[in-house]
């Protein structure tokens, strides 16, 4: 149980990476952008992969009537996510300590993992909702109003995960370093739960 508890202490700490590294990344490459434009999604706001990428993405998107990318103060999520992550890390580490001291069982580990996963899924859902709004809520006076072959207005929702060809742009959306650290940390807590469970069974 001590090994499991140590993993449970370490695991949530990996989530602290989210304060430095981006959670998600969307790259936009096109023939005239051999060095693609990139958007890093941090828990506290959006940043360009290169300094002027946000300005340049907004500049291109205005042709098709997309909104400008939100600033931290434009979305409640960027204020709330850092707090939630902080609380979750604190709770996770506390559970680990209590487990180490034998005060709580591995079930608390599973509980933390389940809660974190639920919130992750909710976060993804929220993120996807924003992507839908960003890609479909277009300015009716857009310079270029493009339609699909079936006559419906073309929309520009970036993919949540994976690659989509959008007009002249190749758009690729992937977890970024902060996201991978989070997954690693969560995997560690899952491992902690498993080890804790195995331990209990042995006894």
């Amino acid at each position, binding site marked *: 149980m001590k090994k499991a508890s140590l993993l449970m202490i370490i695991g949530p700490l990996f989530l602290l990476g989210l304060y430095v590294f981006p959670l998600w990344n969307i790259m936009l490459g096109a023939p005239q952008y051999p060095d693609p434009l990139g958007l890093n999604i941090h828990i506290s706001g959006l940043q360009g992969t290169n300094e002027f990428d946000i300005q340049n993405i907004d*500049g291109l998107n205005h*042709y098709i009537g997309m909104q400008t990318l939100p600033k931290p103060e434009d979305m409640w999520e960027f204020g709330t996510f850092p707090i939630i992550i902080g609380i979750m890390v604190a709770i996770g580490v506390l559970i680990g300590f209590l487990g180490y001291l034998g005060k709580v069982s591995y079930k608390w580990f599973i509980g933390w993992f389940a809660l974190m996963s639920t919130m992750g899924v909710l976060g993804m859902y929220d993120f996807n909702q924003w992507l839908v709004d960003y890609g479909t809520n277009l300015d009716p006076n857009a310079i*270029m109003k493009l339609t699909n072959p079936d006559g419906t207005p073309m929309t520009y929702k970036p993919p949540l995960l994976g690659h989509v060809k959008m007009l002249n742009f190749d758009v690729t959306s992937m977890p970024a370093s902060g996201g991978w650290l989070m997954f690693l940390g969560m995997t560690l807590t899952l491992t902690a739960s498993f080890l804790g469970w195995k331990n209990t069974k042995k006894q």
Partner: protein
Amino acid sequence: MKIYNHLLMTMGAALMLVSCGQQNQNSTGALSSSAAEKVYVAPGEQDEFYAFLSGGYSGNLTVYGLPSGRMFKEIPVFSQFPTSGYGYSEETKPMLNTSHGFVPWDDAHHPDISQTNGELDGRWIFINGNNTPRIARINLSTFETEEIIEVPNSAGNHSSSFITENTEYVVAGTRFSVPIPQRDMPINEYKSNFKGSLSFISVDPEHGHMDLKFQLLMPGFNYDLSHPGRGKSHGWFFFTTYNTEEAHTLQEVNASQNDKDFIAAVNWKKIEEYVNNGGGTKMPANYAHNLYDEGTHTATTTMNKEVLTVDPLKVPGAVYFLPTPKSPHGCDVDPTGQYIIGNGKLSADLTVHSFDKMIAAIEGEKFDGEAYGIPILKFEDVLAGQVKSGGLGPLHTEFDGNGNAYTTFFISSEVVKWKLGTWEVIDRKPTYYSVGHLMIPGGNSRKPFGKYVVAMNKITKDRYLPTGPEMEHSAQIYDISGDKMELIYDFPTHGEPHYAAGIPAEILAPKSQKIYRLDENEHPYAVKTPTDAKVVRDGNEVHIYMSTIRSHFTPDNIEGVKVGDKVYFHITNHEQDFDVPHGFAMIGQNTSELLVMPGQTKTSLWEPKQVGVWPFYCTDFCSALHQEMQGYVRVSPANSDVELKWSLGE
């Protein structure tokens, strides 16, 4: 003439056959490659070297890639350049100011890249204006001309602009001697009255700013070309001279009478010390110093009123003459600094002087008389060897860093490869035709990159499809990585390239700037956000603070301008994206367009002469909506009271 051409063609064909034969001998089967493969840079791939070719009478500097021979850019230096507005925009007009007023053109000759410890460092490239003596410095991260300094007491600024091995000085010598100071006097009193000035312009190690530190006033010869000592000879500078006869007319004949002219060896370290200790004489002068500030995107002119001159006789041991046969032209120093090559242009042979022997002769005080008080060393005492090449009219020599030298022969139209030390000729290849300079990247530094040599020719004739009487010049690229030179490519060049300078792409490419930062733009008329755009009247001057971004001008409707106004369009490009310039042109404007780079501000003057509503537009196809990037200015009669107003999207 026809027979002659036939002969030449036969000779050419014969040589090609010979060269093919040799290639086969050297062949290593499947590993050997054809000339086409050697110069082919596939689509999307990049060249191995940058080559900066002087534009000669274009006044500019052109940038090419090696080995492809593709031209990347023409950098405006001494000539107005309507493509970008250089020399037309209010910001860059001062770059072309001189003591003779605004001079919109020059004859650009010898580019030289800055060095540290005798190796190319790629910070700046310098080039001389030959006609109205000037030296320019170009920044090699923006590839823009940043500074031009006029050289007083000079005429035909030809033995320029060569730099010392730590870029301490950029050196400019006069080809034509003149009265110093200039005065009204009979031309036929040239002899012993005219002087030749050699100017040492210091270069600030951090910013590159130039300052004319001192001028050496030499006898009235023609100082033709020069190169710095390097390694052991660092601290010396060598200048070829002709017209030691001091002829003032029909120089073609009268300046070609002496069997030997001189290479002047100047110990600039000694003179620098003399000057630093208060030596030299200040002389009234008037010369322009034009400096472009990257922060304000604006050039300013300062007129300097004094120059420090040095009489070589006042600094014992500072200057010596090395007799050199037959009106030497090129003056080249090998990578070790030991050999000084004088290319006697009316001779078949090359004269190579030894630096060690020169020092020994000076220490032994073995002089062969003097000229105007300057000691002449004995020819035999300083001679290291002579290259009996069999060519005619040697002009310039470059080095490959492997102990070989390559000399151009103008009259016999060829490049000759020979070995330093043994003076034996290893190979020779024809050029097409009448080659002037040649260039090996770093070929006049301590560390040449001896892979290619570029020969720049004076005569083109039948090399390309004919384009009437006037044609671009031709250049040839030879692969010199093997024992024998191999002609691998032939391409037309712009203007008349004299010298050139090459540098590995890996040194320059990574630091090439992509944009100017808008947040660092300190131009007094810049607008940082579109909401700051405005129009201000000051008497009959109207200042339009305008911004551009894909795909509109802010403002794009302007009213209240009157006939007789001086309208200044101050355009700030708000893009911060690589390779998104915006252009600006106004109908009927008596100047050129502007091409404004991202983050930059440029100003164009328009003096409307007719009442009406006149359009302006973006001249650079910036985006899909480029055609819509336009606007109107309403011009009212001079006495009207139409209110000044401006708008976008109203």
